[in-house]
């Protein structure tokens, strides 16, 4: 008899937890289809909560409380129905305020945007820019300055005309100011306010914003100038493959032949044009808020191709509220700017302390002939042939 009781007790202790687990499966039913404790816990942990049980429940008279019910005082549209519609931005809103995006009363993107902007985005910035600077210092310590190997001739060749240098410096100076003011805006709340206080940062932030917004036009104009004057010299060709195969001679003594721009410079050029163009577009959409939206349509197109699935991700959010468009534009603007800044760090290094004779190209426009022969041998031949050609004809 005792054994039988023991067996029953054992079965009972094992069965109760499993019954409880089964009961957990349909917790939604326990709350009458409303938010569960699990939903609240997931939200507090910052996890994705499937809101379909609420967001899909708006604008449907069948889902609303009956007019005869206690909550059915508004007829087919109950109070909860109205609040759900406001919560998920599906309510039919009219306002007296005239302006873009004024009928969006609530949108979900703000919180995830803020969390990303204050966390991962700043970390990416620090690691990317700090890592690039560290890598350049290490490269300098290991490789040293790239010297002119042959004997200097004392004669120079015109590398860049005045207008080319003007375009380059307009782009460079505007980019540096945009980078600094952009970093001030990005790291203001987390770094500068705790360091200098809100009053000091307020002035800095206002000034930075004005400068950042208005100097952007000089950047865009300069971007067009350098594209027009240099695109012909930056089209890829076979010499680039040879140059890349030898890593531009960075680690050996041999300099692979190159035309006016070598493959490394071409990569910099196209990075500046494509990333700079993308930064300009997202910047314009931020400069004139809600005037033109870039991301909703792009996300929709990518979803239709199934692009997120290629990386094992779920569909990108669509449609986006006007505010979410701005949030994505800000994140994209900052991310691409950080990537381009890291690339430009390498460009500035090689154009100044990293390579003997390189700065003269943009400083004076004239370069030492021996430098040109070592780094741009095919271009030197072209230039010298052009010089001698009229003499031969004569």
């Amino acid at each position: 008899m005792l054994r039988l009781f023991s067996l029953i007790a054992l079965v009972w202790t094992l069965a109760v937890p499993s019954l409880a687990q089964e009961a957990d499966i349909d917790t939604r039913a326990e709350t009458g289809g409303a938010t569960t404790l699990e939903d609240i816990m997931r939200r507090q942990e910052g996890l994705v909560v499937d809101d379909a049980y609420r967001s899909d429940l708006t604008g449907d008279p069948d889902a609303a409380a009956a007019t005869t019910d206690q909550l059915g005082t508004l007829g087919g549209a109950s109070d909860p129905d109205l609040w759900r519609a406001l919560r998920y931005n599906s309510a039919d809103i009219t306002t007296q305020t005239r302006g873009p995006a004024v009928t969006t009363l609530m949108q979900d993107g703000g919180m995830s945007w803020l969390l990303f902007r204050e966390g991962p985005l700043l970390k990416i910035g620090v690691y990317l820019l700090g890592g690039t600077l560290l890598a350049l210092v290490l490269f300098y310590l290991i490789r040293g300055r790239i010297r002119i190997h042959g004997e200097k001739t004392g004669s120079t060749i015109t590398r860049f005309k005045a207008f080319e240098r003007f375009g380059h410096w307009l782009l460079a100076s505007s980019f540096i100011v945009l980078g600094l003011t952009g970093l001030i805006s990005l790291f203001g709340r987390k770094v500068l306010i705790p360091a200098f206080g809100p009053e000091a940062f307020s002035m800095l932030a206002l000034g930075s914003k004005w400068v950042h917004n208005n100097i952007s036009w000089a950047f865009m104009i300069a971007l067009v100038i350098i594209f027009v004057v240099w695109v012909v010299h930056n089209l890829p060709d076979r010499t680039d493959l040879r140059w890349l195969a030898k890593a531009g001679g960075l680690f050996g003594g041999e300099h692979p032949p190159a035309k006016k721009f070598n493959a490394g410079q071409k990569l910099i050029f196209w990075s500046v044009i494509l990333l700079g163009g993308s930064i300009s577009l997202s910047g314009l959409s931020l400069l004139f808020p809600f005037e033109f939206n870039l991301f909703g349509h792009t996300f929709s197109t990518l979803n239709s191709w199934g692009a997120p699935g290629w990386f094992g991700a779920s569909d990108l959010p669509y449609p986006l509220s006007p505010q979410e468009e701005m949030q994505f534009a800000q994140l994209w603007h900052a991310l691409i700017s950080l990537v381009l800044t890291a690339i430009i760090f390498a460009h500035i290094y090689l154009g100044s302390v990293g390579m003997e004779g390189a700065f003269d190209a943009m400083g004076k426009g004239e370069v030492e002939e021996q430098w040109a022969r070592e780094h741009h041998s095919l271009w030197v031949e072209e230039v010298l042939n052009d010089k001698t050609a009229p003499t031969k004809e004569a």
Partner: protein
Amino acid sequence: MKAFLLALVALVVITVGANQILHRIGFSADAATVSSNNVRLPDE
């Protein structure tokens, strides 16, 4: 360095000029997001 100095001058001119032009034609972020008009109810 003449090209560099000229670029700096152009930078300042474009920056101030763009601001003035956009401000005068009323095509600015301010104009897009701020309204000086209040909602007024008629006096009874």
